[in-house]
């Protein structure tokens, strides 16, 4: 009962703290939104197009590019604007449709189309391969029209229309793609990437910064007064544990709910997700109480807590996928509980895993939580009786 009273008081105190609510509620949502909107499918090659003329053949060429799933096309009015975007890495390449393209092609000439590439050689080559293939398809139609006009007469436009109509049916060489594996080692992209990673990051950071509440209670002498009543210290420890656990669970549920409703995140097997959220909340609880006994001032907890949380998030794959870092860093990253939690989410979200598939992660996280909670309660208990 005492523990429940302590928890209720802790939660009431939190509800009145507008800054804490900002960090608990608003910030994670905004970050999920920003990161989710940025980390999207990068399969497309980003091409900027500067068209010096808007003639039929030039327009047709740009339309061909636009219809290809391999590239995404952005129009630019001037070359310098497009060059700036290329330099800033907002584009992978810039295609300059030269002036006089239409006239030259109609009169039997040859046109060279410059493709400006960024400094990264390989990206430029990838862009060039994609664009060359598309331009070749356009050139093939122009060539077929000219060839027919040369041999049989007629107007260029009439022959071009015939070539365009025939192009789809004469294709002899087709290319098909096939993926050899069905499941991914990454989280899905977009919000399904940002929501679970930010859940891991923020529940931990908030708990760590939340250690400030314990320090403040200590400073204000609240514990001393409570101890003056016939209440055993371990009831207080239990009450604080419940408070931190409730806060961590509430925040997790909020992120899960908002992720599902606003951002359409599918959280996978409910039991596995619930188990993972619970052990992670316990890890957060242990960390928060430990922070409350380690830091000396609430300011320290509020300032250094987030920095530690971000560093752990970076090591553990909450800021970027561990699949992109060197093997050594991946191994080192698994020192943090974050890496295990993210591995668990990958299993649940990308491979449809249930409890048996994440048993290892759950066990590791439970062990971490137990260790942290044990150390934290012993330390807090000592502080209370000291």
């Amino acid at each position: 009962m005492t523990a429940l009273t302590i928890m209720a008081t802790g939660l009431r105190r939190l509800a009145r703290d507008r800054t804490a609510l900002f960090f608990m509620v608003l910030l994670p949502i905004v970050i999920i939104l920003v990161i989710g909107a940025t980390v999207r499918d990068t399969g497309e090659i980003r091409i900027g197009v500067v068209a010096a003329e808007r003639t039929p053949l030039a327009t047709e060429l740009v339309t061909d590019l636009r219809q290809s799933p391999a590239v995404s096309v952005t129009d630019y009015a001037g070359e310098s604007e497009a060059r700036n975007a290329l330099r800033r890495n907002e584009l992978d390449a810039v295609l300059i449709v030269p002036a006089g393209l239409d006239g030259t092609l109609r009169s039997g000439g040859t046109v060279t189309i410059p493709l400006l590439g960024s400094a990264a050689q390989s990206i430029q080559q990838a862009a060039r391969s994609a664009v060359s293939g598309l331009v070749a398809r356009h050139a093939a139609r122009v060539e077929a029209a000219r060839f027919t006009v040369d041999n049989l007469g007629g107007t260029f436009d009439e022959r071009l229309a015939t070539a365009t109509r025939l192009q789809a049916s004469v294709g002899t060489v087709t290319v098909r793609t096939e993926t050899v594996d069905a499941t991914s080692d990454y989280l899905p992209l977009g919000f399904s990437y940002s929501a679970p990673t930010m859940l891991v990051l923020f529940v931990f950071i908030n708990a760590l910064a939340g250690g400030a509440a314990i320090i403040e209670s200590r400073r204000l002498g609240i514990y001393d007064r409570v101890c003056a009543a016939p209440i055993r210290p371990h009831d207080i420890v239990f009450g604080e544990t419940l408070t931190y656990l409730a806060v961590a669970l509430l925040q997790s549920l909020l992120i899960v709910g908002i992720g599902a409703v606003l951002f359409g995140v599918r959280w996978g097997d409910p039991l596995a997700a619930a188990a993972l959220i619970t052990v992670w909340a316990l890890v957060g609880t242990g960390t928060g109480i430990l922070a409350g006994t380690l830091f000396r001032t609430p300011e320290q907890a509020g300032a250094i807590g987030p920095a530690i949380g971000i560093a752990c998030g970076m090591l553990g794959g909450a800021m970027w996928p561990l699949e992109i870092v060197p093997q050594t860093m991946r191994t080192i990253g698994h020192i943090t509980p974050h890496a295990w939690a993210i591995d668990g989410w990958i299993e649940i979200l990308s491979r449809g895993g249930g409890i048996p598939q994440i048993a290892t992660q759950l066990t590791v996280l439970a062990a971490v939580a137990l260790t942290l909670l044990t150390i934290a309660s012993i330390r807090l208990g000592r502080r209370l009786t000291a």
Partner: protein
Amino acid sequence: MSPVLAIAAKDLRQRLRDRSAIVLGFVAPVVIATLMSFAFGGGDSYHLDAAVVDNDHGELAAAFTQVLRDPELSDLVTVRTVPSEADARSQVDSGEVGAAFVIPAGFTAAARGGTAAPVTVLGRVDEPVAQQVGQAIADGFAAQLDAVRLSVATALSSGATPDGLPALAAEAAARRLPEQVAAVPAGTRQLRSISYFGPAMGIFFALFAVSFTARGYFLERQTGTLDRIRAAPLRPAVVLAGKSLATLGYALASLTTMALVTTLAFDAYWGPPLAAAALLVAMALAMVGLTALVISLSRTERQAEGIAAMLTFGLVLLGGNFVYVSMAPPLLRTLALLTPNGWALRGFTDLATGAGPSAVLVPVLAMLAFTAACGGLAVLLSRRAAR
């Protein structure tokens, strides 16, 4: 010593005695830059290791393999020949190669006569780019092959007689495609992760100075230090200037440490020293403006801490300190330019990618405008509060 300097020096001394300030201003940014540099140490460029299976052994299959080995593609693709499709699949699956091309049996004969079985590009779920690039290369090859057939078909459909087919085909094959793509280097430097996230994280942590200083102000008011300073024969402007100078100094020291450490240890490029310094000073000035705004918006130490934290996180999120802003949708890129840190990052991005020093002019002016707006608002608010 002038009173301004004396006040600034006192504030700085006080700040440096606070371990949290040292950790946030100097240790944390360096640790985090180190982590980032290790994480992205593998390099930011892209390369495709591909396998090719030739089940055809004909002329066209050889031509296609030749295209893959073209020196022009050597930086992008490295090809190895594997004996069977099963081998190719297992190599793709294990990640040994990013993609594999399977040329079907009878490809050459069929392509000459009618419709050939498709060339298959094998890829992995986690490497969509490899597969896309593979497909683009194969598509380009197909487009070249199909061009001759399209010319002949168009002629036939337009009234040419089938008797002349061999002659037509020979003539069509002798002609070149009238449009060619020529790759032109844009003469820019590639933006390396450390050159973006170095400044991004440096600014993020330096922004904590806003909270420290604003809180310090209210603490001094509580303890009566401010009243005692006011009792001295000093104009309020002098006190304000001293306090602002301290914030400026702390922010600059933190940012410069980050710049030096990332440049010397991790090969980050912050740009030509003078241009980079202009951006750093303008950013530090913006932090002074923000501090003044936070102080004028708050009544207590707690409030100041809260408002500063919200402003800081709001700015770094919008400004792109946590994500590559160049990858963000256009709306987010535009919103980033409402923040001083967004402008600073734009400036550092431009410098790091090879724009001239004059590229910092607009960002610096934007940051100064932001500082002036914050300062003006702070003055208005405190006048209203005084009334």
